[in-house]
């Protein structure tokens, strides 16, 4: 910088300096924002947009693991369209996501409201609630795998000792049992995230609003319905978007507990994509399965995005 300042007068003295386009770009305030954004932009393109684009491109090729493929158009999608296993995984994924998300929200909200009350040992209880979220997913999945084992399940064992059942429950061997079992594991793992985030939202609600409502003679339900709920809506929208995204793309729990079995009853689109792409080596088809997840995910994002734009959602007021 010092050089420029020193040299600048010399230049003007010797010859009229013509400002190049590059120099103008460098100094222009309107472009300054662009320059500051550039590193982040490069990062996003390199690590997010490029892999996503590559994935979509791969889904239009017959690429195999370790060798590039040729463009085959929508052939992969055509095959999947008639593939009953693929549709089964779509069904499984939707069921898994919807049931788990709704229950996670209900339990999470309940826990958050409870933890927001004056409780003895509040800090410790809040920390305990987080435990399922802290334990690495693979470890908790292995624990659940043992809990649901057809031969060694502690649940079956206890029920048998209590003479409530005569034979072990086939948790992971029967298609519907297996579905409910993995959904249960997912709920157990996902509740803390919802609960703690909603709790954070609850604490931003000003106590004076509640005080005013109490003075007006409101019932607890009315306070929840007309104060807590409207003020919590933006947080709920964000939390549920994330919750739905995480659940929809779940992989570890399923892979450790069932590998998609029995008879593909718990295969989610993510695990199915992995099986086809990496284990069987059909990268193109695997990429097509993961690309098929995008529309569903986009829907989930758009709902919350448009929701957050609306004043009604933001402030609990009417739009009009």
């Amino acid at each position, binding site marked *: 910088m010092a050089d420029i300042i020193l040299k600048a007068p010399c230049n003007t003295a010797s010859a009229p300096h013509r400002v190049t386009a590059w120099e103008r770009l460098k100094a222009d305030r309107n472009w300054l924002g662009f320059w500051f954004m550039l590193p982040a932009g490069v990062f996003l393109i390199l690590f997010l947009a490029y892999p996503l684009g590559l994935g979509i491109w791969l889904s239009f090729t017959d690429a195999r*693991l370790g060798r590039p493929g040729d463009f085959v158009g929508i052939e992969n999608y055509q095959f999947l369209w008639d593939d009953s296993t693929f549709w089964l995984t779509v069904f499984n994924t939707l069921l898994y996501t919807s049931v788990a998300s709704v229950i996670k929200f209900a339990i999470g909200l309940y826990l958050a409201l409870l933890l927001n009350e004056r409780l003895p040992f509040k800090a410790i209880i809040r920390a305990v609630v987080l435990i399922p979220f802290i334990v690495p997913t693979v470890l908790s999945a292995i624990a659940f795998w043992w809990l649901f084992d057809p031969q060694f399940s502690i649940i079956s064992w206890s029920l048998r000792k209590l003479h409530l059942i005569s034979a072990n429950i086939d948790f992971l061997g029967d298609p519907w049992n297996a579905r409910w079992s993995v959904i249960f594991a997912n709920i157990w793992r996902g509740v803390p995230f919802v609960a703690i985030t909603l709790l954070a939202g609850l604490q931003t609600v000003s106590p004076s609003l509640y005080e005013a409502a109490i003075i007006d003679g409101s019932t607890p339900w009315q306070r929840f319905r007309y104060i807590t709920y409207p003020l919590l809506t933006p947080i709920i929208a964000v939390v549920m978007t994330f919750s739905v995204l995480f659940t929809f793309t779940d992989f570890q729990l399923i892979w450790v507990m069932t590998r998609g079995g029995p008879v593909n009853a718990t295969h989610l689109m993510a695990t199915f994509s992995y099986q086809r792409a990496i284990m069987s080596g059909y990268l193109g088809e695997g990429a097509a399965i993961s690309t098929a997840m995008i529309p569903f995910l986009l829907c989930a994002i758009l709902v919350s995005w448009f929701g957050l734009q609306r004043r009604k959602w933001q402030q609990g007021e009417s739009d009009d």
Partner: protein
Amino acid sequence: MTVFTRRTLLQGGTAAAAACTLSGPALLDWAKAWAQAAPWKPEKGAKLSMLRWKYFVQSEDDAFVKLIDAFTKATGVKVEISRESYEDVQPKASVAANTGTGPDLFWGLYSLPHLFPQKCIDVTDVANYLGKKYGGWVESAVKYGTSGNKWICIPVCYSGALMNYRIEASKKAGFSKFPDKTDAFLEYAKAMKANNTPGGFALGHASGDGNSWVYWCLWAHGGNAVDKNDKVIINSPETAKALEYAKTLYGYMIPGTASWNDASNNKAFLAGDIYWTNNGISIYVAAKKDPSKKQIAEDMDHAYWPVGPVGHPTELHLMYPVLAMTYTKYPQACKALMAFMLEADNFNPWIESAQGYLTHCLNAYDKNPVWTADPKTTPFRDVAKRTLTAGGLGSVGEKAATAIADFVILDMFANYCTGREDVKGAIAVAERQLKRIYR
């Protein structure tokens, strides 16, 4: 474990003596002499790297490291070994073959060299040398090892999976010998179930145990995924028969096998919940090691898979070939190492250290004491001779490997056994997938 007698001690002694030849100066002298005489002279300054499958037993890997050390001392060629879970060697090797860089040698699963036969160096001379010296290769090894009339890899060993059963419970069910025919096996399973001593095969996505029994069942009844020209022929009355057989058998199994993975039957057998299953030697080794399971080790034995209506063994065991990439700068060193690994002075102690997990593909090694020191390991001696190759009648390449990795046949059986599909439906799903793989 059997009671110690003078005889078992003597046998143990022989094994120990054989193991001793591996270490110490004797081995080094032998290795040096071998390096002098061997037809393959490593290039000057040669350095090799090898990616191998991850061991099942530590002692096997220790013995392998010793063997490699001896090679390095005798030839001056440094060898860097890295290990990957056996399912992961294939993707890495595929990438290496495609990009032309990576380890010089890959030691992976059966179909590996057939994914890129033109990228593997021709090792016909090594295979012929070893075959001539050690009583010839078993038939399945020739099929896995050759592409056209060229050897593209050296088949090193198999890991076998056979029937594991409890002796007392079988006797109680009226079977003093494990049944050797599929019909008798069905009777056996029925009787065992009736005595409340059932068994089970994995019907979940168990890459090893699940695949090995469904292929056995399919082939035993004359069913095949493809014919010898790789044309899909799964839709046949034989396949339907195999499915019916499996469904009946499934009825005699312990409940819950539809969710089993590779570890489930080991756990259930060791816990005394099941009395017959299919597995490698790992259940037996684990039972022997654990004092609280001593009784199970004494009361269990291994048997060949029952033979079906086709009249010959239809087993499927995993083969582990080693191959060298054409991009290596040191092909002679690669060949020397491959030959060195399978020379008797190295191979015998190494296969012993594997405790029966691994079986040789060269006939002369039938005499290794590991197969007779404990009669319960003896059936594993023959797995290389009894196995069919991946893909059955068809080629042993990528397509066969894909069909296995994608659980096409396993899912067909599971779909029918669990009642999710009828025979036609189960076969149709498999046929559609196979047609895509084999197009």
